């Protein structure tokens, strides 16, 4: 039969083909099998369930993780307080979720690029964004996204999931330049419903890009619980649709998050392609300072979840192992309190930018018509002269 022959030729019709007896296969054949695995090291009480990974045998490493989680929580507490007193804009606290950003960032290298959602201050702080910069951003000042370092990290992404495609581009840049760097994109459980995320996972798979996607699954997207977000048993299995690897970790166990991240980053750095990590945690606080979670979920659900929160968990382990005591805790809290208070003062003392900045950064060079508008915006006298 030749190409372009639209119908089977009439002549062949009487060439009776051989008939074979039906082979009566009772079931269809399985052509692909998948499995999603879950891992953790510390149980909710802080007991080690398995041998800890190497980094976790080092007290300094664990204390650094602990410190970062406490810093994140204290930052959140301060930010909420500033918002409540009208000195900060709407703010999204990560109360109870600190192990995800800290576990993620602590496994990254400085030269990797983080693409955070709006609830990853913990990761931003670890990577060197200052609390002042974070407060500026949440206080409504663009300079908060012009952090001194890390210069190539993306700013907070407010539109849910839309940064996932960016991470594909960043990772492709690394691959094309043959750099051993990895893009890390973090988003929430709600974001997994967005087409952007599916498109990004798929594209990352096609090019086997060095990118790690992390789902900070805090079980709620504002008022929508996970069960109404998807029928998928796990969010890690979103990876299967893209033909990439996915796994689940206890997102309240910072050791588990960091360990999974390290593996994923190592694989990506070695050219092994993308990876998806679903970190199971819980949003203990309101969605943002503009939210009142008691409208849509019960207090008892929340209080039950307090028993799993990541800071107490790691502290229990540290204390049990004799690595941490009351004096350490007091010293740490004092240090962090000072850091945060100073940052808040600096933030509050920072005068707003001039209005000209909104013009000056629209394009690299100011177009003519925009220059005229800039002039008008800067010159209240123009209004005066016009007769107000």
């Amino acid at each position: 039969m030749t190409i372009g022959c639209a119908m089977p030729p009439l002549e062949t019709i009487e060439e009776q083909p051989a008939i074979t007896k039906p082979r009566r296969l009772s079931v269809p054949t399985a052509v692909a099998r998948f499995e999603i695995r879950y891992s953790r090291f510390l149980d909710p009480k802080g007991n080690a369930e398995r041998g800890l990974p190497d980094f976790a045998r080092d007290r300094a490493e664990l204390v650094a993780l602990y410190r970062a989680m406490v810093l994140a929580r204290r930052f959140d507490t301060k930010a909420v307080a500033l918002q409540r007193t009208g000195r900060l804009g709407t703010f999204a606290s990560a109360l109870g979720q600190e192990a995800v950003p800290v576990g993620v960032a602590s496994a990254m290298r400085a030269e990797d690029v983080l693409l955070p959602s709006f609830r990853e201050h913990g990761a931003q702080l670890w990577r060197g964004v200052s609390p002042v910069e974070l407060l500026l951003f949440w206080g409504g000042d663009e300079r908060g996204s012009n952090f001194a370092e890390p210069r190539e990290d993306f700013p907070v992404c407010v539109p849910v999931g839309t940064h996932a495609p960016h991470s594909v581009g960043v990772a492709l840049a690394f691959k094309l330049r043959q750099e051993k760097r990895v893009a890390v994109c973090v988003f929430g459980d709600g974001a997994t419903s967005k087409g952007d995320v599916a498109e990004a996972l798929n594209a990352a798979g096609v090019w086997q890009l060095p990118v790690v996607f992390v789902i900070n699954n805090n079980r709620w997207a504002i008022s929508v619980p996970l069960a109404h977000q998807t029928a998928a048993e796990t969010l890690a299995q979103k990876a299967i649709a893209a033909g990439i690897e996915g796994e689940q970790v206890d997102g309240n166990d910072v050791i588990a998050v960091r360990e999974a991240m390290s593996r994923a980053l190592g694989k990506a750095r070695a050219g092994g392609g993308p990876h998806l990590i679903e970190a199971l945690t819980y949003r203990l606080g309101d969605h943002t300072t503009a939210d009142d979670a008691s409208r849509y979920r019960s207090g008892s659900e929340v209080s039950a979840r307090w028993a799993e929160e990541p800071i107490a968990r790691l502290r229990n382990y540290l204390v049990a192992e004799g690595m941490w005591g009351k004096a350490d805790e007091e010293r740490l809290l004092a240090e962090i309190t000072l850091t945060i208070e100073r940052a808040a003062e600096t933030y509050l003392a920072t005068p707003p930018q001039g209005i000209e900045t909104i013009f000056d950064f629209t394009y690299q060079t100011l177009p003519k018509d925009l220059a005229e508008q800039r002039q008008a915006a800067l010159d209240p006298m123009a209004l005066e002269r016009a007769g107000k």
Partner: protein
Amino acid sequence: MPEITLVQAVNLALARAMADDPSVLVLGEDVGAEGGVFRATEGLLDRFGADRVLDTPLAEGVIAGMSVGLAAQGFRPVSEIQFTGFIYPTIDQLVNHASRLRTRTRGRLTCPMVMRSPYGAGIRAVEHHSESPEAMFVHVPGLRVVIPSSPARAYGLLLAAIRDPDPVVFLEPTRLYRAAREEVEDNGEALPLDHCFVLREGTDITLITWGAMTKETLAAADRLEVDGVSAEVIDVATLKPLDSDGLLASVAKTGRCVIVHEAPLTGGVGAEIAARIAERGLVSLLAPIERVAGWDTVMPLPRLEQQYLPSEARILAAARRVLAYQ
């Protein structure tokens, strides 16, 4: 008759429409137990049940697309997009499907859907929560675009939008959600979808605006009155189709015109209005039209947003230039 806010009027109209017509559904992110982030859908889940008030997954594209499917099947879906910063993923469905289902099937399938979204700046919201993208929708044939600026107009126009047999983008100015109260009778009466509203009659100059900018514009008109200038203030309200006749009639009377909107100047709906006046009202124009609009920059974060928004002072200055023109 109770005095209610704009967002309460939206809620009232939704409840009324749902009570009147079982084909009306409310859907969107957090519209159920949460009652919407601004409480526009508060109480609807309790009253009408989970079959008529649906919390959707977090995906604006599918909210728009499933609305098309529901509408083609005879439902009247009223969806909520949480902020206009997240409305862009719906544009594909609005342009390529909702707005043209009727014409591409020559009337066999139609698309009576409403997409509501709070819009505009001035509430010190986080990034992407303050934009005014109405011009993008006004350019799309087959859509209607409606923006109320008072509780009563919110009630009447939303009822009309829901009853309309074609797709409507309904933008609600967040800055006005709770800014003022007005008596609104829950009488089920819709307002027309193709008429602008004269908020204040005047003879010397026409100030044309819509949405939250009605506030500063009316204030400017008050101020002009002190100076002995009689300003007519028009709330366009139904931006598409646009009531050219209503606008032209006013300009024919006053001969002078300032258009005010929050969205960036270039390519804003003010351009269309100015163009129509320049085409058909040129004879009556005694002075150039001025537009007072958002700057052609990205909406800044809250610390600078007040300097982005057209102020009463800018409106006044423009009006005075136009009035002074010989």
